[in-house]
């Protein structure tokens, strides 16, 4: 527990986001999540400020995931604190330690992560379909038609795709994988969800092979 707290405190953003706290509650007053959850940014700041290690750990089990990351708190705090920013540090630490709360929260995010890590895009037209979002109603599109044709009717060439938001060049994707690996994102992913990690690794290997082939083709052409 102490280790977790120390890790939060040693993040280089920590001093940037927490300067002290008046306990004034302005952050909580305008926090959207405080209206719907048993959650208060003031409480988060106070916990960190007063170094209540056990309660910090408890908050990381659930509460920190309520924050909507709107940063209203940061814009309003008279002490220039950023409770939302502190929450982000806590979330990162929760992931690093493979905390159960993080695992639970991440599960429904799997599709977004798969998309993100393999394509460098986070959202694609094939994800925004009525069967994925039944509560969005039956008429997500006002015109009948097959998704591919509807996308081709967008007058921007890069957008005529279905599986990515825009067409991403192979080289760009490969660069992205290097970033994920070198910054430890792949490691966090492995800690959190081994299955997803395996699927993504296979995908990356395949794309890297494609890229190698493409490079060879280019050389042959020269």
């Amino acid at each position, binding site marked *: 527990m102490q280790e977790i707290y120390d890790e939060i405190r040693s993040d280089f953003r920590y001093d940037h986001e927490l300067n002290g706290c008046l306990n004034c509650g302005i952050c909580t007053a305008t926090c959207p999540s405080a209206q719907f959850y048993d959650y208060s940014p003031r409480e988060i700041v106070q916990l960190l400020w007063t170094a209540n290690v056990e309660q910090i750990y408890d908050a990381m089990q659930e509460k920190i995931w309520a924050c909507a990351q709107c940063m209203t708190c940061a814009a309003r705090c008279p002490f220039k604190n950023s409770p939302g920013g502190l929450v982000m540090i806590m979330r990162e630490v929760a992931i690093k330690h493979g905390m159960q709360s993080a695992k639970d929260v991440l599960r429904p995010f799997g599709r977004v992560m798969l998309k993100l890590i393999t394509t460098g895009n986070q959202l694609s037209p094939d994800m925004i379909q009525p069967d994925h979002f039944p509560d969005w109603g039956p008429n997500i599109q006002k015109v009948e038609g097959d998704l591919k044709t509807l996308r081709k009717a967008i007058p921007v060439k890069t957008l005529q795709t279905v599986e990515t*938001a825009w067409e991403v060049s*192979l080289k760009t994707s490969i660069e992205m994988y290097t970033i994920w690996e070198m910054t430890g994102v792949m490691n966090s992913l492995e800690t959190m969800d081994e299955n997803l990690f395996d699927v993504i690794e296979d995908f990356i290997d395949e794309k890297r092979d494609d890229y190698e082939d493409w490079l060879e083709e280019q050389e042959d052409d020269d």
Partner: protein
Amino acid sequence: MSNQIPGDENTGGIAGHGSFFQDANLSAEEATRATDWVRKHVDRRTIDLGERMDDIREHMWELEKEGEIIVHRITDEHEPINVKTLFGWDKKVPTKQLWHHKSCGQCGNIPGYPASLMWFMNKFNFEPGKDYLDETDQTSCTAWNYHGSGIGNVESLAAVFLRNFHQAYVSGKQHGHELGHFFPLVHCGTSFGNYKEIRKYLVESAELREKVKKILGKLGRLVDGKLVIPEEIIHYSEWVHVMRNRIASELQTIDVSNIRVTMHAACHYYKMVHEDAIYDPTVLGGNRTAVGSSVAQALGSQLIDYSTWYDCCGFGFRHIISEREFTRSFTMDRKIRVAKEEAQADVMLGIDTGCITTMDKNQWIGRAHEQNFSVPIMADVQFAALACGADPFKIVQLQWHASPCEELVEKMGISWTEAKKNFEAYLKEVEAGNIEYLYNPELALGGRA
């Protein structure tokens, strides 16, 4: 002249306070001097920023002098227009030679957003490949995922930022221009907030710079061994803001004076690194961030304020995927209902993907909770394009919106049914391979592989 407010004579105090508040009886000159002092210290535009709030751009110049980084400059060629930020700082907004930094949410979900923007650039006779560039060599900023799930970290966000902006810096080469010819124009509010935050960390932390330098070096994305950081981070709505009068005077064809507009400014536009958001005294008295509202005003629509303007939309990054009850309750209760009941809005305008998606898609389910309110939602640039005669389907792409855009379009004097018929005929053409583009599609693929 006395400062005393009529009706307060009996108490000898200033209205609203007890009698211990006495009129200071200052002369006009003294009063000005006194309020000047207050303004200087308290007015939010000149607020004492303290050490932590100094202008990050000044540190960038220092770092450049020390040979640490290269600053991607906005030059006269970018034909910049100066605006004021929240703290009264100048911000240069380039109007030309722009590198479209697309948004995964917009392109995947609200494609009329980037299409309308490029349509405007063409209307101003911008030459693709010279005055603007859209290409495949870019990734999303990855910040939605980061704020939603916590997967990712400052280092990965910084590497992505520097990778994309390096590409913007060198992209002109391929088209026969100098380095730095194209300046990045960020489409997404989340990317905009995230990039500004990350830029701050990069400038402040030598350790972070050191770490990402290794990555950028490996990617071959250093220039003379240095990181490239742009002079300003520019959001597309800032481009619309500085172009608004030209849009209204040169391109507007439809009278929108009967349209009641409410505005939702994205949190990550003006609450994150808030010192950099644009405020303009001519837009809602400078009490709200100017972008979005300003173009609605310039077009002559009725811009209506409403009490929950400061609230977020309920997107929540994570919540829109896995905690939808929060998202839809918040958006219906705090935004849609208020816009409808208080402002009787014909439309709600946004400047960011997440907000527009949230408020657009979550109206239908409201009926299940006896919240039968609906308001069309779109981006400022889509509304402006409609007012300038753009096709509601082919360009503004309203067919992807779940909210009731039909009524708004009709109220603007455009026939929805007619436009839909034309579009359906066009879909047949598309199937036959006759596709219309806003510009030479080959240019967009210039960065392939």
